[in-house]
């Protein structure tokens, strides 16, 4: 079954917009710069090793293993620090990669970093044992008893293994978010615990040497960024914004819109389509924070989110009282008009993914007739905010399509069975697709299908935007 509530937009002639917007170029330049910096930081630690005469320490097998071990430790630690920066919510990183882009990079570095650190431990044990002509077991014992700070380093390594293992997807989905989160915080302890042995056992980072200054500056920089952007800034912003629950509106079964009022919210510099991490200060909810997208464009004194009760705790959000204190971290994300590259825009939403689409539609820049909104759902009952979308589409001259029906079993598609048989796809729904940016928000696998459809229609990745909600 398909329902088509199409508004006929007035035709209008306009000068062709530039193919690639300057904002996009700026963002790409920033992303490139950050990537170059990351690569150079790896090269730099190798250079520090070479500057210390490291190139000469490859004469014997023991030397080779030891030198490789030192390099593995240096590069692995550098990657760990980069991972921490990626998770530190630095504004520049969020602007360049978006929150989920940064998180994807963070995840992709996890295993290489851990492998390098494990290789560091293994290579040095074998290298030292060879040099000292003792057994590996005896060498481990000697390291732990003779060398300073090694016990801390071993604890750090153990914690690191715990963090990465707990992050591997399968394990992750079996753990409650809060448990995973606390385990993840241990990575800070792990990195700190490994610092002393780097300074006391390693010959490279001797107090007062240029290497030592650089290394400490790196640690101080990363720790400072985390402190400022993950702790101080959110607290200060929340306190200054004086956010309180203004009202809770029922949207559908288990779905509510929460209106939050505040003071001089323009200072947050939030954009439609972005999300905050929300904390509601009630006795049952204060200890957990959840990411929710804005479902209406932010104003100077109000924010609105639309939330479906999925988890154990978000069910309680429907019962929030007026006046409840709210604190936020954010705004984060690149699911905004700033990421645009083309004059036209296509917004595709499913389920509660409609929230950022709804706010984006409100403020995205397009002329009447240049926007298409596609709302997907199983039944009419779970197409949330459809009336608000229809109203906005009418006001702004956007085409609005609601596509209802279950996806065909066994076929990879984001459309209902009858549409797939059609055949209907993104290109037939939006003939001028190639001049458009496509924004997709919905369940992960459904989102992947839409992205695949857009890619096969010939759309370059820069014109496809999606934000993943799973942490």
């Amino acid at each position, binding site marked *: 079954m398909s329902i088509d509530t199409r508004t006929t937009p007035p035709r209008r002639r306009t000068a062709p917009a530039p193919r690639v917007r300057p904002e996009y170029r700026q963002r*790409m*330049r920033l*992303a*490139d710069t950050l*990537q*170059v910096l990351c*690569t*150079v930081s*790896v*090269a*730099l630690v*190798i*250079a*520090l*090793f*070479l*500057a*210390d*005469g*490291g*190139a*000469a*320490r490859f*004469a014997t097998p*023991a*030397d080779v293993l*030891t030198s490789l071990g030192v390099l593995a430790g240096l590069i692995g630690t550098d990657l760990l620090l980069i991972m921490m920066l990626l998770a530190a919510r630095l504004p520049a990183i969020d602007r360049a990669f978006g929150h989920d882009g940064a998180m994807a990079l963070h995840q992709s570095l996890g295993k290489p970093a851990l492998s390098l650190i494990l290789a560091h431990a293994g290579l040095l044990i074998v*290298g*030292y044992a060879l*040099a*000292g002509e003792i057994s590996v077991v005896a060498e481990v014992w*000697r390291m732990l008893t*003779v*060398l300073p700070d090694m016990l801390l380093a071993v604890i750090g390594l153990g914690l690191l293994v715990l963090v990465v293992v707990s992050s591997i997807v399968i394990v992750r989905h079996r753990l409650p978010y809060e448990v995973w989160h606390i385990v993840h915080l241990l990575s800070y302890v792990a990195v700190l615990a490994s610092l002393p042995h780097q300074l006391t*056992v*390693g*010959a*490279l980072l*001797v*107090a*007062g*040497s*240029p*290497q030592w200054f650089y290394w400490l500056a790196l640690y101080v920089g990363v720790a400072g960024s985390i402190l400022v952007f993950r702790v101080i800034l959110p607290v200060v912003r929340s306190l200054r914004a004086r956010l309180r629950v203004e009202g809770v509106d029922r949207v559908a079964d288990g779905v509510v819109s929460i209106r939050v009022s505040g003071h001089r919210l323009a200072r947050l510099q939030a954009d439609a389509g972005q999300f905050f991490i929300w904390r509601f200060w009630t006795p049952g909810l204060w200890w957990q924070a959840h990411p929710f997208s804005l479902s209406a464009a932010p104003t100077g004194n109000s924010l609105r989110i639309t939330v479906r009760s999925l988890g154990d705790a978000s069910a309680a959000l429907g019962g929030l009282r007026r006046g409840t204190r709210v604190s936020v971290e954010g705004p984060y994300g690149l699911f905004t008009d700033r990421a645009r590259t083309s004059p036209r825009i296509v917004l595709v939403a499913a389920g509660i993914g409609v929230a950022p689409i709804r706010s984006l539609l409100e403020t995205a820049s397009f002329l009447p007739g240049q926007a298409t909104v596609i709302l997907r759902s199983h039944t009419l009952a779970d197409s949330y905010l459809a009336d608000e979308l229809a109203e906005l589409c009418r006001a702004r001259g956007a085409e609005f399509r609601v596509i209802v029906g279950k996806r065909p079993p066994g076929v990879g598609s984001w459309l209902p069975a009858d549409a797939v048989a059609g055949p209907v796809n993104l290109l037939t729904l939006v003939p001028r697709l190639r001049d458009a940016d496509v924004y997709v928000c919905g369940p992960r696998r459904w989102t992947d299908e839409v992205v695949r459809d857009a890619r096969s229609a010939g759309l370059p990745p820069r014109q496809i935007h999606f934000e993943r909600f799973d942490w």
Partner: protein
Amino acid sequence: MRIRAAAAAALASVSVLSVGWLVGAPAVQSLQATLTTTLTRPPSNETTGVSSTGGGTGGATTTIDASAPVAEALAPTSVTGTFEGSAVQTRFGPMQVSVTIDNGTITMVTPLQLTNDDRKSVQISNRAAPILRDEVLAAQSANVANVSGATYTTQGYLRSLQAALDAAQL
């Protein structure tokens, strides 16, 4: 853009690595020098019994090598002989050097004990010792610059050397 970023990253990385390599080159050469000199020099690490000369720090006791001719010269500038410095405890093990003086001129500094608490320290001191020796021979005193990456070795080496020079009244 991607290609440009990759090219920039590659270029920057290669330059950083080259600079590191160049900075490290003197250390590499001196290590190679050590390797060749240690092959010709008789092992002097056997004098570990000397560590009884004060577990200590600072100017502790100084033993004068009995086997070496000790010139009790009146004028300090005409000292000739080989003098042992005290064993100086560093964080990575004891350091001890002897100095050979010919007519008031330092002609050789020989390490008797180098920091050897762990393999790493051995590497460091092997690298630092020849650098320090050359610097001392050039400066004709224990007043020389720190060898980067080998601060403890440098401190121990120079303190032991100073003790030896004090003993020689140079």
